């Protein structure tokens, strides 16, 4: 096996390690192998940290206002899709109380 191919396999192992896709025993073996290889160790650690940071990074807020605005756009095209969730009071127009 030539060095170039071996390096590619090592990169793939690091990619799988970073995404948590390696079986446990292979993960342990790779970690043991990286113990005396600072370059490999750095590659593994930083890539895994990147993936973890990405997975933790998202906090897209799906607000009630967005939900209602999307429905309004659909209603405006003439489709009454009747959501199963009622519109909250604060987003409804109140009629004046007479009498």
């Amino acid at each position, binding site marked *: 096996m030539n060095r170039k191919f071996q390096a590619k396999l090592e990169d793939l192992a690091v990619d799988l390690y970073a995404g948590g896709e390696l079986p446990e025993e292979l993960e342990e073996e790779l970690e043991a192998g990286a113990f005396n290889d600072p370059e490999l160790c750095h590659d593994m650690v930083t890539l895994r940290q990147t993936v973890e940071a*990405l997975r933790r990074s998202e906090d897209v807020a799906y607000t009630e206002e967005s939900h209602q605005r999307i429905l309004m*756009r659909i209603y405006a095209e003439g489709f009454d899709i009747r959501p199963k969730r009622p519109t909250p009071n604060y987003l409804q127009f109140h009629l004046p109380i007479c009498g």
Partner: protein
Amino acid sequence: MQDSLRESQTEKRWLTALSEGDVSAMGGLFELYGERIFRYTYRMLRNRTDAEDATAETFLRVLKRSGELRADGAFRTWLFRIARNLCIDKMRQHRLIELPPDAVTSGAEDRTALKVAVQQALAELPLEYKEPLVLCDLEDMPAREAAEVLNISVPALKSRLYRGRRALRSKLGGVVEKSDEP
């Protein structure tokens, strides 16, 4: 497991009703997927108004083509594909008229600097890297399904995903490492 089985049975019921002309069945499908499609479009476009538009348009397209629906399990992939195409169209428009994305820091004082840095770096990645990261790492979509949404093979998806993660690391520089320091 139980939840996903229940979800797929519910989806089948709504799809059958919709394909038979019951437009109100879309309410159920919207409850199932509306939020996920909004999150996906927001991650792609980084702009709330555009994401709301793209989400509404995704469901409108389904409604307009409801006669073609089949309850064969491919609905979710199809839905994401429609949303993806709409996002790409919007991104093209943005390139022409330079609409600004929502500022990633606005109204989010509690976000850490790392979160902001990651989102900025993700937004700057080329689309071919950004899409697999959004679908696989943020949407938690299985590789086979993500490949179908992007209309590429699973090996091609994995290759883009792995390159994308490395590109993201390069964009972040040492930010991730520093954030782990005590």
